[in-house]
């Protein structure tokens, strides 16, 4: 039912509200109202890309969003990189399509996995994610909640090199450090150096190892039973295809009479959007066309809630230890707030204390119920 027909039916309702009153209330128009408001407001999405340098992360991001986010990037040579540590860089771009605005933020992690000694090279990344959660937590507990900036990372694309025989130790450790903080989608990068057999073998191997090591990657939600058959089929195919083997390209080549994004080799042309060449289309559909909102939901409902619960628990345990109320919020490196915010925080502290007492009471009640 299109927007106009809904409006039309709304009009009809007003005209015939007397005897239609009992059957039709009219809140079926809610989705449309939400839709209109969201379109006005615009969406935001934060995507993190992680993996060793040279795996085609920037190229893939450019291919996914048809932009050139990395125009002025300067690549360091090996000598300069000897003392490089893992950095976190952010690029934000506003994209608009058919009237819908998207504020896309790409968080990049240059230097990850490049050093000789990569012990805990994921630490800056986990710190960054926690910082965003912390920021949101503070904002949410603040007075002015109208314009909270949501910088939380909604999805992390992790690039697995195609040259190995499966997951390497650094891959496993990274994913285990992050799987409870962010939605991880593992990808097999530069898949054009693998034959179809090798792709299949590698995917099976990676899937096995992910299960074996207990890594919780992002799971596609189950289809509702009343979804269209086509959607269900697509969903099934998507699930069997993970991890996606992707190829990215910044160049347009001529193939089969068309201009497509691809890579030109002496032995053939690899087309990025050809489903028989790689899973790029599946990734794009999944990431943008069908599951973008679900990724945001899972981030809010699962990862952020975990973080929040963990924080509050820490606070309660800390308060139980000492009865002072200074710094009830978790100690993460953030710039010191000014005086005004300090006052606000003090007010919030008292509120929080009350909340904590309520929590304790609830816990006690649950405990008594169990017994």
């Amino acid at each position: 039912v299109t927007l106009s027909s809904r409006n039309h039916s709304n009009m009809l309702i007003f005209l015939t509200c007397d005897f239609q009153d009992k059957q039709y209330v009219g809140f079926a128009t809610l989705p449309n109202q939400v839709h209109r408001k969201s379109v006005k407001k615009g969406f935001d999405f934060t995507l993190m890309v992680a993996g060793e340098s040279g795996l085609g992360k920037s190229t893939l991001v450019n291919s996914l969003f048809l932009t050139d986010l990395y125009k002025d990037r300067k690549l360091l040579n090996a000598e300069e990189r000897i003392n490089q540590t893992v950095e976190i860089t952010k690029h934000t771009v506003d994209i608009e399509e058919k009237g819908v605005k998207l504020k896309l933020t790409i968080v990049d992690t240059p230097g990850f996995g490049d050093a000789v000694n990569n012990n805990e090279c994921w630490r800056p990344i986990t710190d960054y994610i926690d910082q965003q959660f912390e920021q949101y937590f503070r904002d949410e507990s603040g007075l002015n909640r109208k314009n909270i900036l949501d910088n939380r990372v909604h999805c992390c694309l992790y690039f697995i090199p195609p040259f190995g025989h499966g997951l390497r130790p650094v891959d496993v450790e990274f994913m285990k450090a992050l799987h409870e903080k962010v939605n991880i989608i593992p990808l097999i990068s530069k898949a054009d150096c693998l034959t179809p057999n090798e792709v299949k073998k590698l995917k099976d191997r990676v899937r096995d190892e992910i299960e074996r090591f207990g890594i919780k990657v992002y799971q596609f939600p189950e289809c509702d039973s009343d979804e269209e058959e086509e959607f269900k089929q697509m969903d099934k195919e998507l699930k069997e295809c993970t991890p996606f083997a992707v190829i990215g390209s910044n160049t347009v080549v001529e193939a089969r009479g068309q201009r497509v994004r691809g890579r030109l080799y002496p032995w053939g042309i690899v087309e990025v959007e050809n489903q028989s060449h790689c899973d790029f289309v599946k990734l794009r559909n999944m990431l943008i066309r069908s599951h973008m909102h679900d990724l945001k939901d899972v981030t809010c409902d699962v990862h952020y809630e975990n973080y929040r619960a963990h924080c509050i628990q820490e606070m309660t345990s800390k308060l139980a230890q000492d009865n002072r109320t200074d710094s009830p919020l978790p100690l993460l490196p953030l710039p010191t707030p000014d005086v005004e915010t300090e006052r606000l925080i003090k007010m919030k502290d008292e509120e929080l204390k009350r909340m904590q007492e309520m929590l304790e009471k609830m816990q006690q009640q649950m405990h008594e119920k169990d017994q």
Partner: protein
Amino acid sequence: MLKCSMAGWMPQCPFTLDQQQESKHTLHSTDCERFQDINSSWLTDQEDPPPVQPSVVADMRSGADLESCLEECMSTEMSESVPPEVRPKPAVPAKPSHVAPPSSVPFVPSPQGTGGEGQGSGRGSALLGYIGIDTIIEQMRKKTMKTGFDFNIMVVGQSGLGKSTLVNTLFKSQVSRRSTNWSRDEKIPKTVEIKSVSHVIEEGGVKMKLTVIDTPGFGDQINNENCWEPISKYINEQYEKFLKEEVNIARKKRIPDTRVHCCLYFISPTGHSLRQLDIEFMKHLSRVVNIIPVIAKSDTLTLDEKTEFKQKVRKELEACGIECYPQKEFDEDMEDKSDNDKIREAMPFAVVGSDKEYQANGKRILGRKTPWGVVEVENPNHCEFSLLRDFMIRSHLQDLKEVTHNIHYETYRAKRLNDNGGLHPISSSGQDTQESNL
């Protein structure tokens, strides 16, 4: 003169058709057929090339008076009067003859040297016919064929870069560690291990004991600090072994040579630059062993990316002062220098390995079949595998061994002897003697 892929410059190809068929390397026969066209000399009947007349002035003028020839010879400069093109070129590329032949490696003296001697005797005293000095090359060749020789190649790189496949492709047989009872699914070892596998391969009657030394675990851990140390230790141990044998009073006629002649270092084809680990490894080991860097799995790079990457790598190696084989300082003459310069410009070679054959253009070729085409391993437009093979095996195999023996080993030896103030020889009977062999 024709350039036989197996034996270098030869007047005729010495291998009979039977020998070619016996060989497991079918490419060789293709080469020979090609060369048959260049110089349509008989290929099948003769086993050895006929002795070629040395270029003495006397022979050029049939029936010339001997005395008048003598006068002429004595009065002219040695170098000028000999027309260079008449003299046959030797079987093996020229190498200076002042280097002492090592006991374990059959050594072919330079043709200039023998030619020079021939010249000299031709000049000083009239050559009364053909002496046959240049058949020494033939004699050495025969000896080599009997004794065979050994070649030790080490492959270093992260797991999954196609090291074993490349070695198998290079030697056209299953010589790598994986072809023995080792399965591909084994876990990455926690420390770098050194595993070596030896095979004897034969081609055209020449036997080669090829040892492939693999280094699983290199660069695969989270913390890869000093992961080159086990490799460095292994290389030095082989030098030590050789030194001990050499220094013996009663030493073996042919010391078994386990020294690493060549180290293929596999660079990951990121397309950006070398990784820190690559630089660290090559810094530590380029003065100890011949390193040949290759870009692994290069079918992931387009032509432009390849050229850019290679340039970047060369620049970085130069900036860090890393000298890979062939080292500039060991170029002996202009010919060497120009040959090696060409190779240095093309390094590192971007290779693709494969042990599967496909049908293309009516031929069976080694390659990788993808949905968008077949990557042909031996097609120089697709990758530089054939360049690497020709360089490593067909032209510089002997040189690799010589540089290892004459330079790397000597450096090690000098250092050891300096440190110890002289090494006491270890006699086989266990007697202690003050006499030093040094």
